[in-house]
Every structure is written in C-alpha cells, then in structure tokens.
C-alpha cells in the first residue's frame, strides 16, 4: 500500500433489514453467535434482508477530495457511516490511516439545555479532542461559528443556522487527517456554505483528505476532481467528477424526465407542446453548440380549443436543475391574439453564452396573467462545448460578451 493512501475500501458490503421484527430477531441471533465466539456469518443474506451497500471498492489519497453522489437510498450515508466506524461492514474490509473527523450530522450530541460553550467542550470530547486542545481552539471555533454572545445561551434557543455553524465549527477544528461530510452544509445560509466549503478546500491544501456526500452536483463539480456514484448500493462509476456526474445523469435520466413531465403537466393541458427542435444558424438540426453560437428553438404545439392572449415562454435548465435563463413574449412586448389547432413558433438565442455542460429547453404556454400554464414540456436536450479551460475546481455558468478596454 503506497504511503499517501489514507482510505482503502475493499469489496465493502452492508446489509439492512426491512422489517423491525426481523431487526430484533436477527440482532439477537447475531449477538448470541458472537457471544459464544462464532462468526455472525454476516456475508449471507437472510429472509427480508438486502444489500444497502454492495461490493464497493475505492482508494483515497492525502489531500484528495472525493464526492459521493447517487439518488436517495443508494447507500451513500451507509458507506460514510462504515468509513467512520459507526457501522461495521458485513463483507469486505476498510482501512483508515489517521484521525477521522466526521460530520454525519452537525450538532449530533448537542444537548439542548446546555450553553453553546458547554456543548463545544462535550462535542469536542465526543469527537476525540482533549480539554487542552479544545481550550486552545475555543476562540477560533467561536469566531468561525460567528455566533457572538449566544455562546453562553442554551443551544435550544439557537436558530437552525447557528446550530449548524457551531456544529461544523467544532468538527472542522478537530484537526482530522480525513474529513467525512454528509450533506450537512445545506442547513446554513449561502454565506455559511461558502465559508464551510472554503474551510474544506483549505484543509485539503493542508493534506486533509475529504469525502463529500451530497445531492448538490454543482458542489461536487466545484469541490471534487474525483467522484463516485452509487446506485442501489452498487458503485456504477468512479473517476473524474464530470464523468461520474454524467454517468449518474444517464442512469437517472429516464426518471428525471418523467418526474419533470409530471411536474410540468400540472397545466390544464389545453395546449400540448408536441415537439421542440433545436437548429444552428444555418437552420440545420443541431444538439451541440459552442458558447458563441446562436441557437434557434422551434416549437410545435396543438391547441385543442381556442386560447386567447397566451404568453409563450422558453427557458434553459442545466442538468443539475439550475435554471440558466428564460424569455417570453410578454417580456418582448409581443401580443398574441389567439392560438388554435396546430401551430409553430420559433425563437432565436443570439448567443448561447453557456459553459460546457448538458442542458435542456423548457417551453411553457401560459394564460394572460401567467398564473397557470396551459401546457408545458421539457424537451430539446443539447450540449455546450465551451473554450473555457476546465480546471476542475471553478466552473462558471456563463461566458458573457466582453472586451478589454485597457491593458
């Protein structure tokens, strides 16, 4: 094993049980077997059990930040808990080198009746710090949490943001060699999230290896060069974070489209959007654009009844559900008298201006007040390839039109 590897998981599996009755029964059996010195034979699946994490292997080096993505229930948190030693794997082996700082849930172990100060000491002790270490770091922790005088108030009077900030501040100051973070940053406001991410990046520069479990794909894109994707307990991809996100999206694509359709079809369905097509400037069908290209969106619809004064809107959404831009006939001060039966409209985006990634066009036809949609659809996927150099860390959304005036 080479020197800078700090985490190694080899064929790690974990099984869970669906019914509570079985949990008690199996638990008693396993513990009974262990007591008399027999193996609990954890590698065998019994009635009602399933693999929550199935045969996952990976390695992590010093200073590396690894993202773990996947849909709900794919085993991300379970994997993280095994890496932290809260759960034992039922198969396979995990090797960890160095002190682990884990943020499975911020403020777990906080006692609501006690003051922030008391809780910092308790939480620190639970995370393995001595009183001396906490004394030394105390001011730094309070400064990072940014809660001022509230430090001496019982934490039950804290806002959820303050709670999260204090919890993160303690865990980030444990001086870990490996940091495990599970979707905890979503609690705080934007400012805190940035601060926390920066802290993680800074720790990374100091050689701390971080594993980040999150649903925020843009965070993974921004923070991690490498990511793994879990799906129903299995690891379906391990590699460059962009590649992994794409694999995840491909896997989820069907579900996502269906979901969005369900969401968008809440309209009255009086108008159906039957087809959306994308063309380049030469009116050729196209699905790959450059940032500086223009794009023509052609939309076919079918109105069952006559609809008076509709507003037609188009928008572009990135593959991680980030809305990028939109426009509609109301904003362009165009008044449409009515639409009926089959029809077609076209809009030209003069410059796409987006950076590399996968996008989709959303078309909605509203009533005059734009309160309820007559019909909507999520179609016309396209890819943008920009010249913007991808460093893996920073990834802006737009490439605006600009020129240098002095240099």
């Amino acid at each position, binding site marked *: 094993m080479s020197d800078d590897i700090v985490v190694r998981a080899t064929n790690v599996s974990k099984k869970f049980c669906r019914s509570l009755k079985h949990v008690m029964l199996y638990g008693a059996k396993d*513990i009974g077997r262990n007591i008399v010195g027999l193996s609990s034979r954890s590698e065998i699946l019994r009635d009602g059990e399933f693999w929550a994490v199935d045969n996952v292997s990976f390695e992590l080096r010093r200073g590396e930040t690894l993202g773990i993505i996947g849909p709900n229930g794919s085993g991300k948190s379970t994997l993280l808990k095994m890496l932290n030693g809260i759960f034992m794997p039922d198969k396979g082996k995990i090797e960890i080198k160095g002190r682990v700082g884990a943020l499975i849930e911020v403020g*777990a172990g906080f006692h609501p009746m006690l003051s922030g100060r008391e809780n910092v000491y308790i939480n620190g002790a*639970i995370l393995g710090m001595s009183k001396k270490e906490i004394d030394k770091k105390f001011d730094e922790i309070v400064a990072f949490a940014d809660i001022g005088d509230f430090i001496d108030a019982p934490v039950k009077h804290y806002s959820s943001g303050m709670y999260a900030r204090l919890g993160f501040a303690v865990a980030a100051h444990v001086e870990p060699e490996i940091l495990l973070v599970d979707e905890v940053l979503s609690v705080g406001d934007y400012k805190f999230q940035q601060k926390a991410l920066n802290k993680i990046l800074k720790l990374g520069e100091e050689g701390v290896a971080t594993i980040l479990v999150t649903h925020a794909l843009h965070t993974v894109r921004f923070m991690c060069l490498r990511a793994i994707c879990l799906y129903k307990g299995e690891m379906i991809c391990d590699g460059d974070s962009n590649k992994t996100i794409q694999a995840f999206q491909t896997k989820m694509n069907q579900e996502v489209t269906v979901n969005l359709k369900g969401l968008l079809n809440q309209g009255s369905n009086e108008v159906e959007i039957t087809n959306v097509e994308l063309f380049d400037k030469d009116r050729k069908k196209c699905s790959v654009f450059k940032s500086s290209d223009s794009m023509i969106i052609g939309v076919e619809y079918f109105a069952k009844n006559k609809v008076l004064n509709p507003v037609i809107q188009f928008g572009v959404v990135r593959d991680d559900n980030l809305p990028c831009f939109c426009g509609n006939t109301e904003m362009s001060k165009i008044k449409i008298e009515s639409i009926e039966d089959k029809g077609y409209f076209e809009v030209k985006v003069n410059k796409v201006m987006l950076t590399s990634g996968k996008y989709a066009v959303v078309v909605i036809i509203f009533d005059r007040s734009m309160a309820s949609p007559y019909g909507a659809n999520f179609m016309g996927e396209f890819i943008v390839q920009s010249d913007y150099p991808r460093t893996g860390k920073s990834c802006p959304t737009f490439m605006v039109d600009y020129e240098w005036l002095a240099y």
Partner: protein
Amino acid sequence: MPADNVTIYQPDKQLHMGFWAVWKEMFVELARSRELIWRLFLRDFSAKYKQSLLGVSWAAINPLITVGVFVFLNRSGVMNIQTADVPYPVFALLGLTIWVVFSKGLAACTSSIVSAGSMVVKINFPKISLVIAAMGQAIVELLVRIGLTIVVFIIFGVMPSGMALLFPLLILPIFFLALGLGFFLALLAGLFRDTVNLVTLLTTYLLFLMPVVYPPPESGILGIINQWNPLSIIIVSCREAVLYGSIPNLGGYMWSSIFCLVVFLISWRLFHLVETKIPERI
C-alpha cells in the same frame, strides 16, 4: 501504511484477535475515554438540574420520603420491623444509601445507550463511556445520601464505628455489579426497548425483597434466598460494618465481591464484542 496508525473495520474482527489482545484493546479504550466519560457525566448532571427549582436536593428528598413512609408504616403497626439497638430511621436510611448505588446505577446504565439515540448512530465514539458516565449519576445520589445519613446519625445520636471510613471501599462490589449488569442491559435495551421498563419495575420491587429497609430474615424462603444472594450479603455486610464495626459473614462478603467482579468483567467483554452491532439496531 505503518501498522500502528491504521484502523481496520471488518466483520467479526474481534473473533480473529487473541484472547489477551481483546483485553488490551478494552483497557486502552477505557483509558482513552476518561475525558469523554467526565464530559458526558458533567453534561447529564448539569442538564438534569438546569431547569429545576430544587436542583440536587431532589437526591435528598427522594430517600427522605421513602424512609418517612417506612417509619410511618412501622410506627402505625402495619409493619413490625425490629432493629435491635439502632433507631429504625437510621437503619432504613443507611440501607437505602447502599441500595441507591445498585438501583440508580442499574436504571441509568440500562437507558444510557438508548437515550443517547441519535448520537450513537451519528458519531463514532466508545459507547462504554456512555454507560460509565451514567454510573456517575448513581455516585452523585450516593454522595448526597451519605451526607444525609451523617445528618440523621447526628440527630439520633448514633455513633458509627471506625469501619464506617471504609464504607466507600466496601460498597465497591455493588458498583461493579451494577455496572456489569448495566453493560449487559444497555445492550439488551438497544435491541428490545422493553428492557428499560423491566429494569425500573424490577429495582422497585427488589427493594422490598432484599434486606434494605429491614434486617435479613433468619428463616423462610426469603431467608434462604438472602443467604445465597450476593447482593444481599454485601448490603448487610456494609451496614453491619458501619453500625457495629465488624463483618460477621466475611467469607460470604469475599465470595460475593469476587462474583460481582466476574460479572463485571464478563459483561464488559461482551459489551465490547457486540457494541458495533448496536448503532444499526437503534
């Protein structure tokens, strides 16, 4: 990867380790948890009395009322407990002071892991510290009751023997017994929540079945049980040492102490072996 720095998680890890290696691991873990045990104890202690008017005095009110009830029952002739040369209140309070270590300790230990719930599932730390810290609550109650007992001794003009100074040492076996059973019951409570209720019920009625507020009966079923019950032997021995300065059944006391220690060691080891199975069952 230097071996000393590497933590390995794999199924049935302890089964592949040697017998003594596991003991070593247990003692190292205990030594490392000192600070955490102290912190958890402080947390439970200050949280418990934070929003209460009477605070720690509850630890004194409780035995006073219990003793009061027994004294009342005794005076009104419902019960007839003869305590030779010691006033009954002194006798009963001393018994309850010894008893609290077992009853309070057992109850606190049993619920320690279940009541820590979310923490156990979300942070990795030695669970043994939760159980030992819970025992701290029994120590607080014990200290308060010792103070109370001293006051009552003075009020009734009873002079304890010189052996009373050995009292903290003499009740040590009860600590080990409570902690040992506590380890086991805390695990059991993790699997079956019924355990917590059961322990509360048991300790309440055991109080009446053991010679705590009355001297051990000489004959009958209760007499035979008390003759062989290590806990009864230790309770009686402790009280006799404080009141009369001698332990008549010294052999019994010794054997009972060894029994308590063995229960403690076995339970501790058991706890260590299966504690990793608990978070996923909570």
